[in-house]
C-alpha cells in the first residue's frame, strides 16, 4: 500500500464504520410512516387498507385510511419495507420503501381505478359474459355485512315498534270509551280512576313503542318516500299529544275530585286526547292501507 492510498484508508474505514453503525442502529430503532391515499384525480380514498411489511423481519403492520384518505403507521422498526395499498375499485399498489431512522416520514400514494366495462360495450369474453362485463362498480357488488347487521337491527326494532303500537291501540280505545263516564256531569271516582289507569297504560305502551322507532338505526343514503312519510309526520301530532294529554288529564282529575267543574287549561284534555287518538289511528292506517 503506498502512502497516497493509505491516506484514504483511514477516512474510508471511519466512514464505513459510521455508516455501519447508523445502519445497525437503524435496524433496531423505530420510526413512523404516515401519508395520504388518493385516486389519480386527487380525491381522497377512504377505508383503503395500508400494510407495511418489514422485509428484514417479516413483521407487518396494517391500518386503514380515514375519511380524508390519511393513514398512520407509528412505531415501525426501521428498515426496508414493502408497502401495499388496497381499496375497492382500485388496482392494488405495492411499492418498496426504506424507512431510515428518525422522525416519521410522510408519503402520498395515488391509486389507479380498475377499468370498468361500459354496460353497452361488447363483452370481452367470446364464450360467456361475466359480471365485470356489465360495468357495475366494485362498491355496488361488494357485500356489506355491517350494513346487513344494521338492517337486521332496524327491522327487529321496528317489528317491536309495530307490535307495541298495535297493542297500544287496545287500551287507547278503552281509554277513549271510558272518557264518557269520567268526564260528564254525573261521574264517579271509580269511572275516573279506571279512565286514568287505562290512560296510563296507553301512555306507557305508547312511549315504549316510540322508543323502538326512534332508536332504530338509520340507513345512510335512504330518502324517505311514500306512506311512511305520512306515518312519520303524524308522530309530530300524536307524540306531543301523548305528553300533553296525561298532564291535562291529571289537572282535570284533580279538579273533578275537588268537586269542581273542569276548567282552565284542563278543559283542553278532551279535545287534545281526541286529536291525539285520531292521529295515532291515522298513523296505524297509513302503513296498513294502500292509498
Amino acid at each position, binding site marked *: 500500500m503506498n502512502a497516497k492510498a493509505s491516506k484514504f484508508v483511514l477516512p474510508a474505514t471511519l466512514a464505513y464504520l459510521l455508516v455501519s453503525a447508523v445502519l445497525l442502529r437503524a435496524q433496531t430503532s423505530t420510526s413512523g410512516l404516515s401519508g395520504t391515499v388518493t385516486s389519480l384525480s386527487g380525491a381522497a380514498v377512504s377505508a383503503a387498507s395500508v400494510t407495511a411489511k418489514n422485509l428484514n423481519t417479516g413483521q407487518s403492520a396494517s391500518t386503514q385510511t380515514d375519511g380524508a384518505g390519511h393513514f398512520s403507521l407509528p412505531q415501525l422498526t426501521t428498515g426496508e419495507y414493502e408497502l401495499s395499498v388496497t381499496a375497492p375499485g382500485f388496482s392494488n399498489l405495492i411499492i418498496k420503501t426504506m424507512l431510515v431512522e428518525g422522525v416519521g416520514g410522510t408519503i402520498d400514494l395515488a391509486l389507479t381505478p380498475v377499468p370498468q366495462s361500459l354496460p353497452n360495450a361488447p363483452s370481452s369474453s367470446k364464450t360467456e359474459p361475466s359480471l365485470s362485463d356489465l360495468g357495475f362498480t366494485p362498491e355496488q*357488488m361488494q357485500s356489506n355485512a355491517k350494513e346487513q347487521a344494521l338492517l337486521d337491527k*332496524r327491522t327487529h326494532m321496528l317489528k317491536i315498534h309495530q307490535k307495541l303500537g298495535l297493542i297500544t291501540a287496545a287500551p287507547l280505545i278503552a281509554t277513549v270509551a271510558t272518557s264518557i263516564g269520567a268526564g260528564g256531569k254525573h261521574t264517579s271516582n271509580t269511572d275516573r280512576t279506571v279512565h286514568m289507569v287505562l290512560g296510563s297504560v296507553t301512555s306507557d305502551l305508547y312511549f315504549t313503542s316510540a322508543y323502538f322507532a326512534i332508536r332504530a338505526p338509520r340507513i345512510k343514503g335512504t330518502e324517505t*318516500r311514500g306512506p311512511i312519510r305520512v306515518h312519520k309526520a303524524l308522530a309530530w301530532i300524536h307524540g306531543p299529544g301523548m305528553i300533553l294529554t296525561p298532564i291535562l288529564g291529571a289537572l282535570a282529575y284533580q279538579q273533578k275530585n275537588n268537586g269542581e267543574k273542569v276548567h282552565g287549561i284542563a278543559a283542553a284534555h278532551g279535545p287534545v286526547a281526541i286529536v291525539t287518538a285520531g292521529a295515532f289511528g291515522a298513523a296505524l292506517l297509513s302503513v296498513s292501507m294502500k292509498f
Partner: protein
Amino acid sequence: MSKSVPLVILLLATLAQGSYGRVRPLRSTAKTSGVAAPASQAASANTQWVLQQSTLTYHVSHPLHQTDGVSHTARGKGICHAGQCEFLIVVPVKSFDSGDSNRDLHMVQVTRGAEFPMVTVRTRLPESTANDVTIHADLEIQFAGQTAHYQQVAFQLTKQGNDSKISGTIPATLADFKIDPPTLLTLPVKNEIPIKVEMTWHQAQ
C-alpha cells in the same frame, strides 16, 4: 452523529419513475392499454346481445296490501358461440322501488340485499330461438345467497330490427331463496313473488 443522517423515506418505486411525492403505480400504463384489448377481441367474437332497456317488477301479496317493486337498472349481455347463446342479467337488489322507502328497506333486509347486493340471472338459449315468437328458457337465479333453477319459463319475443323485446313472468317464490316472508302488522306476505320481466335486447354485432 446519527441526527446528521438524512431522515427520509427512500421510495424506490418513485425513484425509478424519477419523481418524489405522489407515487403512481407502475402497472397503470399496462392497465390503461388493457382497456382497448377487449374491444379488439370482441370484433372477432360471435354475435353479442346487450340489454338496452328493462323493467323488472316483483309482486308481493299481503292481506292488506298488493305491492309491486320495480327496477329499471338491470344490465345484461349475451354471447352467442357455436350455436348457443349465454346470457347474463344482473340487477342490484336495492334498485327495486315499491313506492315506500320503509318497505324497500325491509325488503332489502329480508332478502339480505346488503350481504348479497346483486340478483344474477343466467340462461343459455339456442341461437336459433332468436326468431321464435315464444321462447322457453331454463333460468339459474342467484339471489339472497341462494341459487334457484326455473325450467322452461315462457317468454314472448318480438323482433324490431336489431332489437328483440321479451316479456314474461318468472314464477319465483320466497321459499326458493329461503327468505322468511316479511310481515306487516304481524301478518306475513304470500310465498309467491312472481317477477314480471320486460326487456329490450340489442344485437351488438
